[in-house]
């Protein structure tokens, strides 16, 4: 499997306390562990089990994902921008890997 690449779409500037929508996508097969390959061997489970969104180190929201989440998980949600700062998004893989994406937003 190719290395999962997170992609995040959000504005880089906002008004103070503006509510903005963040759209995230990460390339990942989200292997359920229920599938068998062509030889009948079960394919081991490997999914992204958690997504966390933080702003300047404070948690905004997080989500636990189970095997019912589609491959290449897409998630959109809302954040408020109280001041200029950095949004940090992390995806936690079953295999222990953590994928990160940071976005600076300027209030002005």
């Amino acid at each position, binding site marked *: 499997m190719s290395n999962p690449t997170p992609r995040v779409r959000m504005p880089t500037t906002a008004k103070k306390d503006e*509510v903005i929508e963040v759209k995230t996508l990460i390339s990942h097969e989200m292997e359920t562990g229920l*599938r068998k390959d062509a030889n009948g061997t079960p394919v081991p489970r490997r999914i992204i089990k958690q997504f966390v969104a933080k702003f300047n180190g404070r948690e*905004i929201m997080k989500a636990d994902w*189970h095997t*019912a989440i*589609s491959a290449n*998980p897409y998630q959109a949600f809302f954040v*408020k921008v109280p001041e200029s700062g950095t949004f940090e998004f992390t995806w936690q893989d079953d295999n222990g890997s953590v994928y990160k994406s940071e976005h600076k937003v300027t209030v002005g």
Partner: protein
Amino acid sequence: MASILGSQTRRDFVAAAGTTIATAALLPSAALAKPEDVVAEIKKLYGDKPIAAGKIKLDLPTIAENGLVVPLNFEVESPMSEKDYVKAVHFYADGNPNPAIANFYFTPMSPKASAQIRIRLAQTQNIVAVAEMSDGRLYTAKKEVKVTIGGCGG
């Protein structure tokens, strides 16, 4: 003149393609959850606390042609203030191999208890959402999604 694909090759190709499609589907033969399993999952979290209907706006298609990618959009009605906010929203499917879909945890930093994801559904089934408010009140919503796999009709 013989075609590039001899008859034997073509048959192999069709058979191989069939296998790929079968393995790519969500294994309909695997043990699937039942509505009782969803009730049991909710009980595990909240015991016998009363759960009221309402507050959750569930946006799911009535008919999903492709069970592998079904858009799920939700919003829970709440002021999302320090004193009154949505703490968690749990989603369950009563006909998937595993009843749990996803759990969302919000904070007063979230302006809306809303998100949009894409889920896998093995068959026609109900999606059940349970929202927990910061004061402990529980709300639920349910929606049936008809799944058409391979265009055979749901």
